[in-house]
């Protein structure tokens, strides 16, 4: 397994005294789907800002493709092209007069030629399915549309790692589904995707790898079924268990012979719900009569 991005005992305290990160070490596998879970204020956003060099670690280090980050202009320029972040609130990241202008902002800053920028913009708009919004002013878009423009604006820079900060917050279920499908597509095309969320159901069904942050420290890491196995830890971090997991555990506890691994999606779980015996004869009676 090759790691694309890693941190080593990262520490960061904001000028106002908030200790946002207190020694976080983690590794992100290239091409993986990673979810970073944690309550509000656990340090998820601060961690992301270290991933593309907006914040500089006060202690510890950030490693990209095996090399420790440097913070000179050229290195940062290079890094920010490779690691793209879609922030939570679209209203603080869309500023241009039209969607095309917005999406071309990043590529232009990379110093690409106009023709190249144009190509990139068209590709990003097509990918996110917003070609028809191209000439619309960003201010008149709906929330869901704005979120897509933000995504397109980052994708147009063709990052190797795509980071999304709370991408599903405030989206309605239909849009969440569209987004998840879209991320799945990117994943299949080889993209490394990292997202933060406190939607445990989303994290459970989507991620390969989960990290739980709690008060600036890494509280757990592993595959979803590993991480959620420790109920106490999950709840201690202000989170809940995914419902699929809970139903599965309960069924196992009741004694149903459910084969491993646990279901990862709603469909899988529903398919594996146990069938009743075909007759309506009280089970205990039947069982005893067969002795």
């Amino acid at each position, binding site marked *: 397994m090759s790691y694309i991005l890693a941190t080593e005992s990262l520490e960061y305290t904001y*000028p*106002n*005294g908030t200790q946002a990160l207190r020694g976080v070490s983690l590794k992100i596998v290239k091409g993986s789907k990673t979810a970073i879970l944690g309550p509000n204020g656990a340090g998820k956003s601060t961690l992301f*800002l270290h991933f*593309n060099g*907006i914040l500089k670690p006060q202690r510890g280090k950030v490693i990209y493709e095996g090399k420790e980050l440097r913070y000179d*202009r050229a290195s940062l*320029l290079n890094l*920010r*092209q490779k690691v*793209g*972040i879609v*922030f939570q*609130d679209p*209203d*603080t*990241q869309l*500023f*241009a007069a039209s969607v095309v202008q917005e999406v071309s*902002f*990043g590529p232009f*800053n*990379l110093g690409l030629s106009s023709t190249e920028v144009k190509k990139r913009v068209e590709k990003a708009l097509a990918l996110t399915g917003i070609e028809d919004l191209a000439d619309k002013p960003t*201010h008149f878009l709906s929330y869901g549309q704005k979120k897509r423009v933000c995504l397109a*604006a*980052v994708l147009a*820079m063709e990052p190797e790692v795509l980071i999304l900060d709370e991408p599903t917050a405030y989206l309605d279920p239909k849009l969440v589904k569209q987004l998840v499908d879209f991320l799945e597509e990117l994943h299949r095309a080889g993209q490394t995707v990292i997202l933060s969320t406190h939607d445990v159901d989303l994290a459970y069904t989507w991620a390969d790898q989960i990290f739980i942050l709690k008060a600036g420290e890494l509280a757990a890491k592993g595959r979803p079924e590993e991480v959620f196995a420790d109920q106490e830890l999950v709840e201690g971090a202000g989170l809940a268990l995914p419902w699929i997991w809970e139903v599965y555990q309960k069924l196992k506890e009741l004694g149903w012979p459910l084969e491993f691994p646990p279901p990862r999606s709603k469909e899988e779980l529903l398919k594996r719900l146990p069938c009743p015996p075909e007759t309506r004869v009280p089970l205990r009676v039947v069982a005893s009569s067969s002795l």
Partner: protein
Amino acid sequence: MSVLEQYAYSNRLRFVHPGEKILFALATLIFLLGTSQTKVYLLVLVVMSGLLIGMAGIPIAFYLRLLLLPLSFLITSGAGIALTVTLSSSKEFLFSLSLGKLTLGVTQAGLLAAFQICLKALASVSCLYFLALTTPMVEITNVLCRLRVPGLWIDLLTLVYRFSSVLLDTATKMHISQSSRLGYSSLSRSFRSLGYLISNLFLKTYEQARMLNITLSSRGYQGEFRVLEPSFRLSQRNLILIGLWLIGLGALAWLGGGA
């Protein structure tokens, strides 16, 4: 918001009557401006710093860094006072440059004057810091209100105070998101990005005002901001101490002047 403010809320003099703190700081400040005694400057600087560090519990390292803040202004303006420009070169310059007929240089008297002014300014700044580090903005506003400062002014103070931090937060987020898309990677891009940022922030400001009107109206806003004011009790002891302090300063200045 600002680190100064954090101390204003957490220092050990937090629950002393804000009126007393304002009186103490302002009266000392005005006294300082009116006197030309270096001794008084030194005394005020030492006492204010002592109170802040000893009684209010402000960390000494932080306070010293704070005192360095106005350094750039002190240096430029101090240089302006120390510098003498003259047509005659008869002056006793410590060092000088001549530009044709003009001579530009520093004399001992000029340097001394600059030094005195800087010391005075530092002492004054310590008074300002006393107020800023011990008294939260709400309480200062409250005292202003009691001093019959026009109501519109008070309302605007309240709103500016609250929404500065909201808009600053928005501006910071905008800046981060632009930086992560390389918006500040060259001078011309910086101008463009900052221009985008400001104009967008302006639009946000309008939107925020519109929303605020809705949310406050739903709580019955009709143009007035009446809210509960914090209540403090004046301490006679403190008032007497402040009086004694001012008399002491006066005596020192007068004696110094006589000598």
